[in-house]
C-alpha cells in the first residue's frame, strides 16, 4: 500500500484534480495561500498509473512535486478506473531502487574488492562458507539489472553508468583474484576451482534462473540483497577464478590456461544469460518509457536489437558447452551400455567370477575405449587370461571402437565367497 502526496501551486489545482477525477480517484486536499497538498492512498500496482497521470501534466517537471511512500496501514484506499496491467511496483520505485545501486562509485568498488577477496579465499581453500559470504556482498546486482532497465526504459545515462559499473567491477574482480592469489604461494587447484573452470549446462540453467529471479524481485519489491546473492553466485566466482588462473599460469600450473578460458566462458555466459532474461522479463511485465509513444517505439526497437545481439553472442559462447554436454551424455550412455554388455558376458560365461569394479572411459576423438575391470576369483587360473581379449572383441565388434582392457584378478577368501554366494 502506498501514500501519494502531490504538492502544487494553487493555480494548477483544478487541472490536477481533473486528472485524478478522470481516474475516479478519491483524495483529500489542503490549501494554503499559494500551495495545495493533495493526498491519496492507493495499492502498490496503481502507483504507476497515478504517477504517469500527474507527471504527464507537468507535476515534478514544470511545477510542484510529488512523493510516494510506503503505508503501513490505511483505513481506505482508492483504486483508479484503469486496470493495472501487471501486479508490480511502479517504474519510478524500481528506478529509485536500482539506479543508486548501479552507480559507479567508491563504495561499489570497495564492495567488489571485498567480495572478490572472500571469493578468492573460498575457492583457494575449497571453503563453501567463505564463498557464500562473498556472494552476500552482491556487488553486481545493481549494474547488471541497471543495464536491462536502461534499455527497456531507453535511459541512456542509466544504461551507460550501469554498463561502466558492470565492466569495471568484473575487471576489478579478476584483478583482485589475481593479486590476492599471488599472496598465497602454496595454493593448488581445488575441486571448487575446477568446478568453476569447466562449465556445464547446469551453470547456464543457474544463470538463467538467477536472471529471472532477480527481475522478479525488482518488480515485486523483495529485499534486493537476497536475490543479489544469486547474481553474485553467477558472476563473482568465475571472475576471480580468471585471476586465480592467471596466478597459476605465472607459476607454470598445467591447468592454468583451461582454468582461464573455462572461467571466462562461464562468466560471459552468465552475464549474457542474466542480461537477456532480465531484459525479456522487464519487457513482458510492461516496463516502458512513460514520456511518449515515440520513446516507447525507440525503446522497443533498441530492446529488440540488444536482445538479438545478446542471444546471438550467448548462443555462440554457450554452444561449446551445450555440445560438450550432449557428447558427455552420449558417452555416458554408451559407457553404460558397454558395462551392461560386459556384466552380461561375465554372468553368462564365467559364473564363478564376481565383478568387483568396472570402469569404462570412452575417448570419442581417438575412438578408443578403456575398460578397467577388477574381477574377484577364488583361485587364479590360466583360463581367465582370455577374458580381457574376449571383452575387447565383443565391445570392439558391437561399438566399432578400439578397445584396451586393463584387468585385475583378485582372490576372494572363502568366508567372503560364502557370504556373497560364490
Amino acid at each position: 500500500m502506498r501514500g501519494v502526496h502531490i504538492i502544487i501551486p494553487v493555480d494548477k489545482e483544478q487541472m490536477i484534480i481533473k486528472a485524478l477525477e478522470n481516474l475516479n480517484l478519491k483524495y483529500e486536499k489542503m490549501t494554503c495561500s499559494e500551495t495545495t497538498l493533495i493526498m491519496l492512498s492507493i495499492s502498490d500496482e496503481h502507483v504507476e498509473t497515478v504517477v504517469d497521470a500527474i507527471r504527464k501534466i507537468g507535476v515534478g517537471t514544470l511545477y510542484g512535486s510529488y512523493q510516494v511512500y510506503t503505508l503501513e496501514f490505511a483505513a481506505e484506499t482508492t483504486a483508479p478506473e484503469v486496470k493495472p496491467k501487471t501486479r508490480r511496483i511502479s517504474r519510478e520505485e524500481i528506478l529509485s531502487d536500482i539506479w543508486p545501486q548501479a552507480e559507479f562509485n567508491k563504495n561499489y568498488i570497495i564492495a567488489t574488492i571485498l567480495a572478490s577477496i572472500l571469493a578468492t579465499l573460498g575457492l583457494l581453500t575449497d571453503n563453501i562458507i567463505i564463498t557464500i559470504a562473498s556472494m552476500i556482498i552482491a556487488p553486481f546486482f545493481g549494474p547488471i539489472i541497471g543495464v536491462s532497465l536502461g534499455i527497456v526504459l531507453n535511459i541512456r545515462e542509466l544504461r551507460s553508468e550501469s554498463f561502466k559499473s558492470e565492466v569495471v567491477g568484473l575487471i576489478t574482480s579478476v584483478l583482485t583474484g589475481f593479486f590476492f592469489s599471488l599472496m598465497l604461494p602454496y595454493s593448488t587447484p581445488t575441486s571448487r576451482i575446477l568446478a568453476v573452470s569447466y562449465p556445464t549446462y547446469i551453470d547456464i540453467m543457474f544463470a538463467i534462473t538467477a536472471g529471472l529471479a532477480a527481475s522478479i524481485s525488482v518488480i515485486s519489491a523483495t529485499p534486493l540483497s537476497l536475490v543479489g546473492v544469486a547474481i553474485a553466485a553467477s558472476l563473482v566466482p568465475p571472475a576471480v577464478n580468471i585471476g586465480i588462473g592467471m596466478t597459476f599460469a605465472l607459476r607454470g600450473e598445467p591447468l592454468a590456461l583451461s582454468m582461464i578460458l573455462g572461467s571466462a566462458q562461464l562468466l560471459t555466459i552468465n552475464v549474457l544469460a542474466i542480461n537477456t532474461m532480465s531484459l525479456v522479463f522487464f519487457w513482458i511485465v510492461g516496463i516502458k518509457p512513460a514520456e511518449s509513444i515515440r520513446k516507447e517505439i525507440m525503446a522497443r526497437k533498441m530492446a529488440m536489437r540488444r536482445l538479438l545481439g545478446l542471444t546471438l553472442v550467448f548462443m555462440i559462447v554457450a554452444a561449446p558447452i551445450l555440445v560438450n554436454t550432449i557428447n558427455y551424455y552420449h558417452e555416458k550412455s554408451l559407457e553404460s551400455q558397454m558395462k551392461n554388455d560386459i556384466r552380461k558376458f561375465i554372468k553368462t560365461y564365467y559364473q564363478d567370477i564376481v565383478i568387483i569394479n568396472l570402469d569404462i572411459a570412452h575417448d570419442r576423438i581417438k575412438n578408443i575405449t578403456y575398460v578397467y575391470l577388477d574381477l574377484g576369483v577364488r583361485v587364479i587360473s590360466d583360463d581367465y587370461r582370455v577374458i580381457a581379449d574376449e571383452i575387447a572383441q565383443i565391445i570392439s565388434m558391437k561399438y566399432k571402437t578400439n578397445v584396451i582392457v586393463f584387468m585385475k584378478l583378485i582372490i576372494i577368501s572363502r568366508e567372503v565367497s560364502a557370504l556373497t554366494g560364490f
Partner: protein
Amino acid sequence: MITVLYDGKDSDRIFSKLIKRLSKNELTIIPLPSYDYETDNGLHVSPTLNHLIKMMGSRINRMLGSYKITYTFREFDFSTLDMNDLELVLTFLNTIWISKGKPLTELYEKITRSLGITYKLMPLYDPPPHLVIKTESGETITYDMFSEIENVESVKEISYSNLDKAKIVMETKMILENSKVILLFQISPISLHFLKSVGSLKKTLENFKGTIIYFLPQKLIDVDSILLQKLGYEGTLEGLVKMAHEQIDAIILDDQNQKLISDLSEVKLTLYPTHYEFNSKNGINKFVNDLLKILK
C-alpha cells in the same frame, strides 16, 4: 544543445525573447523549408528564411527603406510577389546558390555574418524541396494564396517537389542528432506534414535520442484548420496534436485550455501546461521562464 525548428508562422515576440535568453553556443535555429515554393520563372522563394532573417538581423533596418532592387526588377513578374527589397535579395541569392549547386551552409553563413546575426542558422535541406499544392481544378497554387478561403477548400493534394534531389545537410543532421532538445516552435500543420512526409528527416527525428517538444500554437487559424481536415485530422488543436504525437515526446500548451488537456489524457505524451499570456511584457517573461525551465 537545443535546436529550434521554425517555420515563421507565429509569435515573433516570444521567439526573440526566448533566443535572447538561451546561450548562443548551445542554440541552433533551423528554418523549415515547408513553405518554400518556386515561381514559374524558377525563383526559389523561402518565406520562412526571409521572415527569420528580417526578425533577427540587427542591420536590416538600414536596408528596408530602399526600393532600388524592386524598381530594377519592376519589368519582370518578380515584382508581383509583393516582397520588399531584403526578401528579394534573399530570394535571388537562394535561387542563385541552388542553381549553381553551391552549399547553402555557405550562403547562410554569409547572410548571417553580413547582417550581424550572431545565432547559428542552418539549412535543413540542400537543395531544398518546395511545396506543391494542387487544387481540385488541377491548378498549382502557393501557400500565399490561402488568404482566400475558397482556395484552401479546393485543395486536393499537398506534396513536396524536388525530394529526390533534396539531401539533408550533413552538418545539420549531426547538430540535430547531438541535440538534447528539439523544439518545434509553433509550427503549423503544413510543417508537421513536411516533418512526417520527408523520409530522411522523419527517420532522423524517429531515432532522435533526446526530447522533441512541440510548442503548440495558442489557436488554429481557419486555413490551418481546413488543411488539417484535408490531411485527415480533426481541424482543432487536438487534431494537430494527434497528427504530431508519434513524432514528438512533449507538448507545451495553454493551461487555460482544460478541454484540450482533458482530451489528451489518453494520448501517450508529456504535457507542459503553461500560461499563454502574450499580451503583456510580464506574461511573455513568465512564459519564457517556463519555456526555459522545460528546455533545461
